[in-house]
Structures are given as structure tokens and as C-alpha cells.
């Protein structure tokens, strides 16, 4: 699944570690989500959406 996590993070000048802290996950998890190697669970996707203040579907795109 594609996502805009890296862009959103870069807009806020956050490092992966900072974002991981805010989401209460490991830094490797942020990296895996950003690179599309791991799709987060629905609760984590909601946490990400809330943190960036945008709807989930504007962050994650399940189009092939």
C-alpha cells in the first residue's frame, strides 16, 4: 500500500525517531511503513491520521 507518511513527516521536519516516539512505535516500524514494506493496523493508521490531522484515505492509498 502506498502512503504519504514520508512527505507529511518531512513537511514537519520530524525525524523517523521523532515520529516513532509520537506514535509510540519503534523507529523501524516508521521506516517499514514509509517504504511500503508494512501496512499498519487500523488503530495505528488512525493514530497516524490523527497526528497529522488528515483523513486516513489522504495518507494511505490502496490503489495498485
Amino acid at each position: 500500500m502506498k502512503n504519504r507518511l514520508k512527505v507529511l513527516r518531512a513537511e514537519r521536519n520530524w525525524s523517523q525517531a521523532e515520529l516513532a516516539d509520537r506514535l509510540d512505535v519503534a523507529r523501524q516500524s516508521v521506516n517499514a511503513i514509509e517504504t511500503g514494506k508494512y501496512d499498519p493496523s487500523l488503530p495505528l493508521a488512525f493514530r497516524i491520521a490523527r497526528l497529522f490531522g488528515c483523513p486516513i484515505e489522504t495518507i494511505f492509498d490502496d490503489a495498485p
Partner: protein
Amino acid sequence: MDPRTTRTLRSAAIAFAGALLIVASPIGLARLLPPHSLPPGGFIVVVTAAAILAAIWTIYFVIKIGRRADELHRTLERDAWYWGGLGGLTLSMPLYAFIGMGGLHWIDPAIPISAGLFRAFVIGYGLPICLQGLGFGIAILWQRHKTL
């Protein structure tokens, strides 16, 4: 290394070292006692009790580590247990047949073969497999009860 990983590794090391110490301590203490000071079977009971304590100790840390892990690591570990465990069990089948049929004695005649050894091998192999199957059965029933 991030603090979460450091904490996890520290907990795993404490779990492993502690469990080893709990199981090994009665064996060490028994050497200090005069011979035959324990009643028959007493040593077996003490070591079994120590193993139960070690299992409880390990479970405590496993739960602690599991709760602390983030979802990616939990997912990776679950997948690794499922696929790795399945692969290991599958691989064990031909080895089980080979060793059970006396394959080691066939390779090296110095390795003894007897009905007692065969029985010990069958029980040693079968016990973890059966308990694993039982554990899986209980867990899947519990999950279904919770979810469906």
C-alpha cells in the same frame, strides 16, 4: 539501538539467565548435600518444581516483552513463529523417521540402538509436538470464542 530494543534485549537476557539459574540451582545445591540425604524421587520433584518456577518466570518476561513490542515486531514474530515453526516441524518429520528407524546406528555402529533408547526418543520427540498441538488447539478455541 533504540531504548525499546535495549529494554527488550535486557528483559530477554534476564529471562534467560534467571530461568537457567532457577533450574540449575537445585542441581548445584544437591552436590553440596551428603549422598542419599534426599528421599527417593525427591531430587526429581525438586528439579521439576524448579522447572515449573523457571517456566512461570519465563512466561512473565515473555508477556512483558510482548506487551512492550510494537505491532510491527509482534507481527514479524507471529509470522516467524508460524512459518518458521511449521518449517521446523516439517523438517523434523523425515529426521524423526530416520533416527527412529535406527539411522544413526546405521551411519555409525558405535551409536547404540535399543528398545529403551527408541522409546525415549519417541517420547522426547512426541511430547513437545503433542503439547504444541494442544496449545494451538486451546489458543484457537479461545481466539474463536473471543472473536466469533
